[in-house]
């Protein structure tokens, strides 16, 4: 689903992403670990076609994402720090807006189904301003579900969530994978559902230093590997 090749992003003399390559198939989840400033967000934004890389190639769903970002965007579902919600609209109205902007079908039944899936049906007509961070995150996932994304790009989805929230996101990812979607999850903490990852990557200084199947590494081994690479800079 995703084929990234030698992606590079520089700002002047500052190299943020340095020759990152990986492939990810449908039904797989790649967890990207790395400390703050490692380039995770930048890489994710490149994958989301929000940022043009300085060099490299990217194919998503078989389409050249750099040449034809418009064709690739319908496949993508991005949940970043911002979560794209309008605070003064209700959950339902937010979904309606984004779905119509996407050119999709905003039938009330569909909206309600998506809200139910993320357990927000009870607050469908409440303004988002009253939502917690976790609820806003869930609403963003509902938006992505509604949009029938095939590739999920999540930037720190576990931040600011309690244990229940984190479990919920992990389950969501599992369901998404089972349905054949691919997901890239960037995180800087180990607390968040690495259990759902098929592959684990460690991004440091813009470089993908590690890219291994999750099955190869136990939790402790991974932790040690990470520590050694980051010289114990804890976050």
């Amino acid at each position, binding site marked *: 689903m995703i084929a990234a090749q030698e992606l590079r992003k520089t700002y002047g003399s500052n190299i943020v992403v340095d020759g990152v390559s990986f492939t990810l198939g449908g039904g797989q989840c790649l967890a990207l670990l790395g400390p703050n400033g490692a380039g995770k967000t930048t890489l994710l934004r490149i994958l*989301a076609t929000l940022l043009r890389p300085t060099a490299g190639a990217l194919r998503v769903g078989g389409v050249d994402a750099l040449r034809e970002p418009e064709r690739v965007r319908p496949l993508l579902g991005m949940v970043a720090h911002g979560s794209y919600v309008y605070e003064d609209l209700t959950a339902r109205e937010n979904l309606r*807006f984004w779905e119509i*902007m996407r*050119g999709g079908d905003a039938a009330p039944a569909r909206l309600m189904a998506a809200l139910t899936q993320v357990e927000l049906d009870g607050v469908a007509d409440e*303004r988002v301003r009253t939502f917690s961070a976790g609820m806003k995150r869930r609403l963003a996932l509902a938006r992505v579900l509604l949009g029938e994304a*095939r590739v999920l790009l999540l930037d720190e989805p576990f931040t600011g969530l309690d244990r229940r929230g984190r479990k919920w996101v992990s389950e969501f990812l599992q369901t998404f994978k089972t349905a054949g979607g691919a997901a890239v999850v960037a995180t800087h903490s180990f607390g968040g559902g690495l259990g759902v990852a098929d592959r684990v990557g460690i991004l440091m200084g813009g470089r993908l230093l590690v890219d291994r199947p999750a099955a190869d590494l136990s939790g402790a081994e991974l932790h040690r590997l990470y520590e050694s690479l980051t010289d114990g800079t804890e976050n």
Partner: protein
Amino acid sequence: MSACAKEPGRSAVSGYAKRAWIVLWKDFLIERRSKEHTNALLFFCLLLLFLFQFALGPDRDRLAAALPGLLWLGFILAGLLGLGRSFLAERENDCWEGLRLTPGDKSAIYLGKLAGNCVLMTAVEVILVILFAVFYNVDLWTPAAPLALVLALGTVGLASVGTLFAAMTTQVRARELLFPVLLLPVQVPVLLATVSATQALLLGQPLADVAHWLKLLAGADLVYVTIGLLTFEFVLEG
């Protein structure tokens, strides 16, 4: 994949219209809920009335002579306040970015925003006209129809460029200063045209006398909206 296939002809047009409409709908809902924007703006119009009166002194005739200019001055000042905030809602929660990721012609967003701004500016205008008629005791009812035409053309002229520049300055430093600095010089022709036409109409001249101004306004409006539609995607990309 429902969203992937390119929908031909009519569907594409109705999809475009739908997106422009939903942007308008969203902004209307947000505005109605938060109310911060519109109420303050309308109150500002009232304040302007006092301002002009105090600035020009009690001489009735002097005020009457300056009236067309004051009307449009008030309108532009309100426009500077009202239009500059067009994209403020998009700054929250990265919604701007979300808009970038939506498929299709981005100019639909511009159109939706433009429509919303035109409605807002029209409301401001109506209030201003009523306030002027009441407080300055001017007969604005007789030339109402041709005046409405001038107002409409002037509104589109202001809102079209205002919406575009608002989108631009939302992401830039010194936004509050840069917006008027960019907008005002470009608005000069619209201002000259509307004031001249209004003045003629208030003096009782027929519509035919100001036809050249109306043509200028219509032409300018067409140019501004076209440029807005064509260049909005480059502004959004930010």
